[in-house]
């Protein structure tokens, strides 16, 4: 039983890897970016758990800036993904412009809320 599970898991990882290697570089960059943002968010949550939630607004803006960045990047990834049929007619340039606008708003709010 355990053997089959581990075998399955290996097969799973393998197929995941092979599937992922097929994704274009631009999407990989986005994935890296998302991973970085999520990592930063997790570090901050851990830090908050240790130090305490005193400057709560700073904590919120710190974490939410990371989460927001990640979410927006995911949205971008969805939109520019060629395999996604839903956004065939949406030009990647337009998608990126929207993404930039959204990020500007996000960071403006973060700046406002940080202090």
């Amino acid at each position: 039983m355990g053997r089959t599970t581990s075998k399955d898991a290996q097969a799973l990882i393998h197929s995941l890897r092979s599937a992922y290697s097929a994704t274009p570089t631009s999407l990989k960059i986005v994935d890296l970016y998302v991973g970085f943002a999520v990592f930063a968010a997790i570090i901050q949550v851990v830090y908050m758990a240790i130090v305490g939630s005193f400057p709560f607004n700073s904590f919120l803006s710190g974490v939410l800036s990371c989460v927001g960045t990640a979410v927006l990047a995911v949205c971008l990834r969805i939109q520019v993904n060629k395999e996604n049929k839903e956004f065939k007619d949406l030009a990647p340039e337009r998608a990126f412009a929207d993404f930039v606008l959204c990020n500007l708003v996000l960071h403006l709010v973060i700046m406002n809320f940080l202090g």
Partner: protein
Amino acid sequence: MADGESSKEATARTLRNAFGNVLSFFILLLIGVLAFSIRLFSVIKYESVIHEFDPYFNYRVTQFLTKNGIYDFWNWFDDRTWYPLGRVIGGTVYPGLTLTAGTLWWLLNSLNIPLSVETVCVFTAPVFSAFASWATYLLTKEVKGTGAGLTAAVLLAMVPSYISRSVAGSYDNEAVAIFALIFTFYLYIKTLNTGSLFYATLNALAYFYMVCSWGGYTFIINLIPMHVLLCIVTGRFSSRLYIAYAPLVVLGTLLAALVPVVGFNAVMTSEHFASFLVFIIIHVVALVYHVKGNLSPRMFKVAVTLVVSVGLVVCCAMIAVLIALVASSPTKGWSGRSLSLLDPTYASKYIPIIASVSEHQPPTWPSYFMDINVLAFLVPAGIIACFLPLSDASSFVVLYIVMSVYFSGVMVRLMLVLAPAACIMSGIALSEAFNVLTRSIKFQLPGSSGTSQSRDASLNTDGEQNDIAKTEKMDETVKERPSKKNRKKEKEPVEKASIRSRIEKRLLVLPLEASVIAIILLVLLGAFYVVHCVWAAAEAYSAPSIVLTTYSRDGGLHVFDDFREAYAWLSHNTEVDDKVASWWDYGYQTTAMANRTVIVDNNTWNNTHIATVGTAMSSPEKAAWEIFNSLDVKYVLVVFGGLFPSLHA
């Protein structure tokens, strides 16, 4: 031949489109004028004056804002109310309305239009109800097409429930909040249909404006997650749903936390937890869909078993922690008003002061008829129309009406949230009904019958009944292809689809006489609605309640201006720093009109203080003197209503 035909049809279509757009633009303009002018009865019958209680506070705040600027407003500590506690106005008020009116005033003045602050305040509500009907048009258009949109906009422009809160002079939060509510929903649906981050950003900003304006924003932040959850459960998850929801939660939460009155509540109270929970769920679901797309079905099964076994444990732990956190607070993190929404008996059991306000009571059945009139009968038809076919957008509208019916049943004030939903539903129902009826008339008229001429029939229909033709086109496109670009690029499939649906619809043809009679009946129904709305606007909802009028038996008009005289007396005959005690209803008016310090006012944030005044008011003279003296009270304002004969005439 085929090419020529199609190009001819294309030009005809563009022409029709252009003509239809211009027509609907003018219709919308007229709807705006209608929405604005139907609310002017109060100004014509009485005078241009701020109404009731809360608007006076908003008016005073606006005056302060225009005089002292935004930073002083933000940091305003008001020492003239809630003596001796004072009230931090900047941190306890929803600033949306005030900022809107202040901006309007500033704009007008910088254009050298010297309107007084009071005038701007009086006319803010009618202006925004015009905006609200336009927003309704947009929202309904996204759901069911232009025809339904226009009908819904007309209905909303004069729905009595909304008129009651937005007549000229009713300068209250709801005046702008309803617009913000509908507009936020519109942008959500728009984002859902297009999957554009641009609209998602706008959506977050509209949500921010709503949070600024009204405490009812929690309705949005609960309704949208519910809809998302509904979509996920019914298997309608799409990337567009993710784009519409995930940025809204992050940006919306951050923006809401910027509003001082909400602040950390945006992440700390249970009202907002639903959105976070759904936020987590949607990520899990998105991940699952993503992985599913990349894996073979067998591998996916393996992955599911692995993830489920691990994930279940993690989820259980998290939910346990969450429940423990929430349960540790006595009210479970919900505010009193929200709790009384979930448990209608909550307020009367624990917070009598909330229950004591008449607008927090459950409504009676006649009030439904009074406030939304014939819409109440059209709503079920609209719901049915929304299920034919069910799209993401129409499922959202259905959810909206269901929730708002429940909430309005609990608290009469939330009838206001129901009104737009009822208008949208009735708009859809009416438009669909006209659509079906006129089509069957057209179909049976001589010269345009027969399957071969169905296209001509549709052309004729388009020519004469522009709205309905557009509706037809729209709902075909909407359900299949949401974005405009799509429609243009893929004309062929659309054509095919429309022909197919036309064939389908031919089966729904009704007898000619029945159709004509039904149309006449529907028109009569509409006429009845219009008559009722005008009556409601003119008679029932225009009294400013600061000036009272009665009719004597011989028909003569009698005007009581005692309130304003009393406040004028106070402002002329008492010292500036004198404290006036009155029951809390009159607090806002006393500070705004008489400019005297009051002990309690309509912002019932401190129950103990109100109870103190209540004790004093109901105590014998000596005991009352002790209490009032401890509060430095010099004057007591008592409203004695015994001399108003036939006040409710």
